[in-house]
């Protein structure tokens, strides 16, 4: 008989050790984006709850932003970069097909012996990556995982598209996940509905663009009402499943940190969940816009920074977007 394969010991759980974020310096008001889409500050506020968003500088890359957020998270966790053994970057706007943003980030941040990969699950990406990090730590495959959500959506927007130009922004958020005797990250509940893949997509694929270029290179395009209906109808149910999977009730929550898609979607989900009054609702979208995979860690960092939540409380994360992919879990706040 051949030799048996041995496995590392499993762990009881993992937990968020820290959070860090990066918001680009340039702030765009609604008045600045309203012109090309023949809109107004009032209309944008009413439809989305967005007042301002950040856009990265032309020479500021996805990896630059991830580095800024990731460095803060590592410093706050009180560990050395070299003890990170896996770097997961949730993004859909790293403009290289290959190599990954994670590989470059791991090198630049000093996680020299870490595995590295990108997770392309759009607005659900951060929660997906967190689910992976938790599982890998529990199975003993990883010990300290840097999970970053980062987007430079401004590179993939048509500023004349009324359905998307005013919604999106740029930024990065990061957490360090490490082992814990008491589980600090609940089971992930995730899925995707590829039957609705055209609800949020690109105007062309790169190869279509090569063969028959449109007016601009491929940009994001979204069927707003279809996405709204799906999010309002399905995401509340996903949240309930994540709570049940973790064995906690809505009353046990201190905070609800949904992907910052649109304030109206957040309001509708909060209504459907009938969350108790004491649960703090993340509403970072107001000054950040929708930053896809970066929105949950950015919103989390805002809640922590402004003292709206305390370490040790429970929060529910839910991401949802292109795919149509969704992912949710209950976490203990860092």
């Amino acid at each position, binding site marked *: 008989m051949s030799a048996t394969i041995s496995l590392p010991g499993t762990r009881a759980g993992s937990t968020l050790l820290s959070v860090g974020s990066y918001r680009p310096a340039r702030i765009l008001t609604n008045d600045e984006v309203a012109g090309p889409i023949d809109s107004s500050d009032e209309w944008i506020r*009413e*439809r989305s709850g967005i007042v301002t968003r950040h856009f990265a500088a032309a020479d500021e890359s996805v990896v630059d932003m991830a580095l800024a957020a990731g460095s803060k998270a590592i410093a706050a966790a009180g560990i050395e970069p070299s003890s990170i053994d896996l770097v997961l970057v949730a993004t859909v706007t790293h403009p290289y097909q290959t190599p990954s943003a994670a590989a470059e980030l791991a090198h630049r941040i000093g996680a020299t012996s870490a595995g590295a990969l990108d997770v392309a699950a759009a607005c659900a990406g951060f929660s997906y990556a967190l689910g992976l990090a938790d599982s890998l730590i529990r199975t003993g495959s990883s010990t300290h995982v840097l999970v970053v959500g980062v987007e430079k959506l401004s590179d993939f927007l048509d500023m004349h598209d009324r359905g998307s130009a005013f919604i999106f922004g740029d930024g990065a958020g990061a957490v360090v996940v490490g082992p814990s005797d008491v589980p600090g990250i609940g089971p992930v509940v995730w899925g995707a509905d590829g039957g609705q893949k055209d609800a949020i997509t690109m105007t062309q694929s790169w190869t279509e663009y090569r063969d028959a270029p449109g007016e601009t290179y491929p940009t994001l395009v979204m069927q*707003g*009402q279809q996405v*709204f*209906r799906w999010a*309002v*109808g399905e995401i509340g149910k996903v949240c309930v499943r994540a709570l049940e999977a973790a064995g906690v009730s809505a009353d046990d929550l201190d905070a609800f940190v949904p992907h910052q898609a*649109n304030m109206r979607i957040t309001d*509708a989900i909060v209504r459907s969940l009938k969350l108790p009054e004491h649960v703090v609702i993340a509403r970072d979208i107001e000054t950040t816009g929708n930053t896809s995979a970066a929105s949950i860690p950015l919103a989390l960092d805002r809640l922590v920074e402004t003292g709206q939540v305390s370490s040790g409380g429970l929060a529910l994360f839910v991401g949802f977007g292109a795919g149509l992919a969704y992912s949710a879990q209950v976490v203990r706040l860092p």
Partner: protein
Amino acid sequence: MSQQILEGLAAIVNEVAGTPIADITPEKSFVDDLDIDSLSMVEVVMACEDKFGVSIPDGEVKNLSTVGDAVTYIEKAGVTA
């Protein structure tokens, strides 16, 4: 026109947009009179689907410009369902 559906729809519009129930009459336009924008309309439609057990596809929603249009659609959809 079904009074029961009208009352049910009025309760939904009141819940979604806070419009006083007395203002929600058949001739009123959702957009022009009741201040229901396209996103609120999606919420109204979804609540109607739940309450009346009918299906109102995205493509139909734009044809429902008044409260009366919606009541009539729900009545017909309910009969054929």
